[in-house]
C-alpha cells in the first residue's frame, strides 16, 4: 500500500519514487506547492475512493500525515519497505 501512495506522489509531483519517504513535505519536494497539494489530495481521493474533509486537508503537512488520515478512512498503508 505504501507503494501505491508513493506512486501517486511521484506522478503528481513529477519526482522519482526513490526520493519519496514518510517525511516528504512541501519543504523537501520542490513542486509540492499549494496547487499541486490540491492535485495530490484529488488523486489520493480518486485512488482510494474516499473524501477528505477540509480540516483533514489543512492538517496534512507531510506524507506521514496523509497516512494518518487515510487510516481514519479505513485505508491501511503498511509501514514496510518502499519497494
Amino acid at each position, binding site marked *: 500500500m505504501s507503494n501505491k501512495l508513493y506512486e501517486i506522489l511521484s*506522478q503528481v509531483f*513529477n519526482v522519482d519514487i526513490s526520493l519519496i519517504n514518510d517525511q516528504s513535505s512541501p519543504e523537501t519536494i520542490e513542486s509540492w506547492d*499549494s496547487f499541486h497539494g490540491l492535485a495530490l489530495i484529488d*488523486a489520493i481521493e480518486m485512488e482510494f475512493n474516499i473524501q477528505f*474533509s*477540509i480540516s483533514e486537508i489543512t492538517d496534512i503537512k507531510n506524507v506521514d500525515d496523509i497516512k494518518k488520515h487515510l487510516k481514519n478512512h479505513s485505508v491501511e498503508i503498511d509501514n514496510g519497505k518502499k519497494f
Partner: protein
Amino acid sequence: MSSEKKLSFFINESKSLTESNFEKNTRIAVIGSFTLNGLAETLQVKCAELKIFSHIFTGGYNQYNEEILNPKSNLYSFKPEICFLLLDTRTILGDLFFNPYDISNNDRKNFIETKFNELANLISYFSEQSQCKIIISNFVAPTYSPYGIVESKTEYGLQKMITDLNSKLLDKFKNNPLVFVFNFNGFVTNHGQNNIFDYRQYYLGDVRVSLEKIPHLANELMSYVKPILGKNRKCIVLDLDNTLWGGIIGEDGFNGIKLGHNDPIGKSYIEFQKHLLSLHKRGIILTVNSKNNFDDAMKVIREHPNMVLREENFACLKINWNDKVSNLREIAQEVNIGLDSMVFFDDDQMNRDFVISAIPEVLTVEMPKDPSQYVPTLLKLNDFNITKITEEDKSRGKMYVEQRKRTELQKSTNDFNEYLKKLDIKLSIKNANEFSIPRISQLTLKTNQFNLTTRRYQEEDILKFSSSDDKIVECVKVSDKFGDNGITGTYIIIKKNNEEWIIDTFLLSCRIIGRGIEDIMMNQIIEKAKTAGIKRIKGQFIPTEKNKPAENFYKDLGFKQEDGFWVFNTNDTIKKPEHIEMVKNE
C-alpha cells in the same frame, strides 16, 4: 462522460514538450478571475496531439483587468493568437451573489448594465490592441436563491441578472468575428454543478473548476482551437451494418435489420442518422465505407421507410468487398479532401484497428459497443467546429452529391467529349462587383492547382483592382445539368498600354478543371482584347509545388514563349470548345 486523463498527467506531459519537434506553432493565453493552474498546460498537450506546439501564458491570479488595460503587460508582450478569458458569477456579482435582494430591482438592473458595459469595453479594448481571437466564458446562472421557489416570481432577480448578462454578451459580440462567447453555463450543465464546483478546493485555493474537470474544460475549449488553427474536420465516413442500422443486411435481410421506431435498438440508429443529417445540412460531407453487396445495401438506403440518410446525402458510396483502408483512400481522392479531414465510424474493432495503424491521420472514433451510446459519442466530438457559417457551407453537402453524379455520368460515358456534351455546361463571365469580390478574393487565397501565378489577394486588393481604370477583374460562374458550381474561376488583367494586356491572375477551382472552361475564359479575354484594339496578350506561368495541372495551359492554346512570358497575338485564332454555352451578361 468522456474519459480524460488526470490533470497531473497533462501538467507533467507539458514539461516534456519542445518546440523544435513541431512544424506548426501557436500562442494561447488563459486569463481570468480565479485559479486557472493547469488549464494552459492541458491545452498545450492537446495541441501537441494535433502536431501543433502551443506557447502558453497563464495570467496572474485575478489579474485580467490589469493585464488587459496595461499595454505593457505580460499578456501583450506574450502576443497571444488565442486568448481565453474565464470569469465567473461570484466575481461579477460580488456580495450580490449572497444578498441580491439588498438592493432594489432597478439597482440590480443598473448593476448588471454597468458590469456588462465594463466587460464589453474591456474586451473591445483588448480586441483592438491585439490581433487575438478572444473567447470569453459566459456566466453560470445560480440555481440556488435565498428566495427558493419564489425566485421565479421576483422582478429582475438573481437568476435573471445572470441570464440577462449572458444575453447581452451574446448580442454584443454576435457579429464580431474575433470574439466568441463560450457557453460555460452549458458546460457546467453537462457535467453537473456538484462535479465542477468543489467547495474544498474553492476554500483552499480559490479553484472554481475542480481539478478533475479541468481536462474536460480544456477539451471543450479545444472546440475553438481546432477550427482557428485549421485542424477541424469536414468529412464523416460511415460503415453501414451495425453503424447506421442494427444487424447485417447481407444476413438479416431487408426486413430483418433493426431500423424501426418501435424498437429501442432501431431508435438508437434512427436518431444517430438524424444527427448525422443535421451536420450534413450545415456542410459536413457524408460518405459510406462498407463491406457489402452494393445492391443489398443500396436497397436499404434507397427504399427502407425508416432510413433517414438517403442516397442524395452521400458524396461517395464505397460499398464493395475491398478493404476499408483502400476505400478510405479512394474516398479521399474522389471527394478531393485530405485524410486528416476525415472522421471514421465503424462498429468493428478490427476494421478500426486496421485503419488506425494504416492511416492514423483519419480520426477513427472509438465507438461504444452499445448503439444507444452512438448519439452521445457523436455529439461529444469537437472536430467539426467552424468559426463561421457561410452559404457555401450550407450547400456544400449538395454540391458534393452533384459532383458524385457527374463522376457517375463520366464513368458511364465512353467518350470524354460525349460526356462533356451531356453535362450541358453553362458559363457566365461578369465584371467583379460587391457580391463577387469576397468570393474572388477567397479564390485567389485558396486556389493552388489551376493557378497560373498564385498571387494572393485580400478583398481590399480586389476592390482596388476592380475600380481602377487600368485593370479588368472578371469572374466565372459555372453551372451544368447537375447543379450550380457558383463562382469558380477568375482572372485579373492589367491594361499595360494601347498594344498589350498582361494576365496578372488566371485561376480555376479544382472542382471544374478539365472541362474546357479555362479555354472559354481565355477566349473571352482575347475577344475583349480584340474589341479594344489590343494586339498582344501576355502572361506568365509561375511554377509552384501544386500548380502542375496548369503548366501547359499557355502552350496548348498556342501562346509563344518570349522573354519569360507566354505571348498571344490577338489576330491568331485560338481553339474554342464547342460544348459550353455562354450565358450573356444581364
